[in-house]
């Protein structure tokens, strides 16, 4: 029995193999080759690499503790007395007399963590939802289509709420905290991933190699997992890269609305930016550093995502 199924699977693979070589793995290899020549991709990758190194090695780079109010007697925000960049504090002091450079460096870690976890969460949940839905739609017959319809109504519900509003709602429900920010930002991404993967899978479902595999009687689960899914990953992998950027920006927006991580001992760019709004007239640099850091980092991820999308998209190839 087992031998027979294996033979069927093998046959299905062989039928699809030629296509995959042309469109599947080959596409990826080709895409990466194209990306390594694309200045956009290189810039993006360089920014992201620097960001990750800083985030991981932050403790070694930061000259001072991020919460030590070492120079608390030199800064008087209520009298508009701030300390700008100088030899011992490269970026000056923040409003409580803490070293701004150290806070920026340590803050990178929180920002990376929020971005990665939130995007990962959105990706996983969205892919699960979308994959299930897509598989049910393509392979499940009438019941499958009903399952798909129910799942998609659920996704529609999430889509019907604007992302920021959804995030604000979740933050209000879970209370404040780092986890809340991650869950809130991640949840807002779920419907996008779900929609994308489902769409790609349905498109793949009509392709010849899938029809061939089905004709040969391959098990549905195997068709879905071994054939349709790998070929449908392109769009959501691109989206994952882009999501890292969105997650970082959304997290900053939540912080701005006062829903960010409230623990003052953990510096984080979004919170720093939101806090610095109060001193915008007296010490704009306190807002500019984290704002630039957020913009540049988000840009790095976006460039990578865009380059990936362009190199995968046959229509945009030169």
């Amino acid at each position, binding site marked *: 029995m087992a031998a027979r199924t294996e033979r069927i699977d093998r046959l299905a693979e062989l039928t699809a193999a030629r296509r995959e070589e042309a469109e599947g793995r080959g596409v990826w290899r080709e895409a990466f080759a194209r990306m390594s020549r694309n200045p956009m991709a290189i810039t993006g990758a360089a920014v992201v690499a620097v960001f990750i190194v800083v985030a991981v090695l932050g403790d070694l780079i930061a000259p001072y503790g991020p919460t030590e109010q070492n120079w608390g007697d030199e800064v008087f925000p209520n009298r508009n007395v701030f300390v700008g960049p100088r030899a011992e504090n490269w970026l000056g002091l923040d409003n409580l007399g803490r070293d701004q450079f150290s806070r920026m460096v340590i803050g990178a870690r929180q920002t990376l963590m929020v971005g990665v976890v939130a995007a990962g969460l959105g990706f996983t949940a969205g892919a699960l939802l979308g994959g299930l839905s897509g598989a049910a739609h393509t392979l499940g017959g009438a019941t499958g289509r009903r399952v798909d319809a129910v799942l998609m109504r659920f996704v529609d*519900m999430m889509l019907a709420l604007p992302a*920021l*509003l959804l995030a604000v709602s979740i933050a209000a429900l879970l209370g404040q905290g780092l986890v809340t920010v991650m869950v809130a930002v991640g949840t807002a991404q779920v419907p996008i991933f779900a929609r994308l993967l489902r769409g790609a899978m349905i498109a793949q479902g009509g392709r010849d190699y899938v029809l061939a595999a089905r004709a040969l009687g391959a098990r549905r689960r195997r068709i879905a997992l071994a054939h349709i899914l790998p070929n449908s990953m392109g769009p959501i992998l691109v989206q994952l890269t882009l999501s890292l950027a969105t997650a970082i*920006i959304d997290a900053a927006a939540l912080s701005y609305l006062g829903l960010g991580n409230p623990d003052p001992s953990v510096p984080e760019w979004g919170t720093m930016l939101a806090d610095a709004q109060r001193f915008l007239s007296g010490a704009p640099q306190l807002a500019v550093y984290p704002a630039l850091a957020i913009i540049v980092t988000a840009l790095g991820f976006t460039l990578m995502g865009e380059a990936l999308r362009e190199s995968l998209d046959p229509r*945009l190839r030169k």
Partner: protein
Amino acid sequence: MLRFIVRRVLQAVPTLFGLSILLFIWVRSLPGGPAYALLPENATAEQRDALRRAMGLDDPVIVQYGAFLGRLAQGDLGESLQTGRPVLTEFAMKFPATVELAVMAMLIAVAVGVPLGYVAARRRGGPLDALVVGGSLVGICTPVFFLAFVLKLLLAEQMGIFPSAFRQTPGIDATRITGLFVVDGIATREWDAAWDALMHLVLPGLALSSIPLAVIVRMTRAGVIEVLGEDYVRTAEAKGLHRRTVRGRHVLRNAMLPVVTAIGLLSGSLLAGAVLTESVFAFGGIGQFIYSATQTRDYPVLLGFILIIAAIYVAINLLVDISYSLLDPRVRVS
């Protein structure tokens, strides 16, 4: 065609119904509650309890939901706990501000985005293309509230070109008909008022347009590049057709289809996604009000506003789908 529309409308009903249940549970499970947000610091525990009881918040959630549905069936969304006014009245008062802002942002995005995207595609790979694409990416990556602050700082405070807040200069003599201040001003020929309202729209409109602008630029660019590669365009150009004819009749029209879809979807999210912009510019629209409602646990407003927005959102999606299927018969089949 009719069957398609009917089917889509019927699909929207369970979506909204499910949403109302989810929202209800969510809203009622928020900690704290209006009893705490509405009274001063030194109110006694008895006063807070009494308020909770008076608001019917002590009943089981299912009973409360039943009451909510009962009222909803009569078109009544309850009253705001913050202001004591009916939710529908509040929505009607705040919605025009948001509509005006969203329309302004969308006008800016389309007026600037489509030409930029087209030019970038035509000069693909050149420095102009890189600038446009890079600029649109920076636009996407800049937090809206920060952009709003910078715009205000430069154009309102430093240069004093545009006003920095509100929908109209306070105290201006203006007639209100629709609540859309610009439209009202034009309809009543109060040109001062209309111009004033328009000027107040520029900065928030610019800030809010950053993301739709970037999206439209990139969609136009991608669309045009794709169409330029199509055989019929090449044929047209090979035939020696005038460049402007090719551009207008063939390239742009065909490249616009996905852009039109995007405009529809973006409009929906603009209507509700202006929370940050509205609060930075004291614009007094629905986004700002919903946010303050989460702060004061104004249950009826949260439920009512989000439901209405979701309904509008679903309706816009529906319109997009229908118009799309009118334009492109292939969609109807699947």
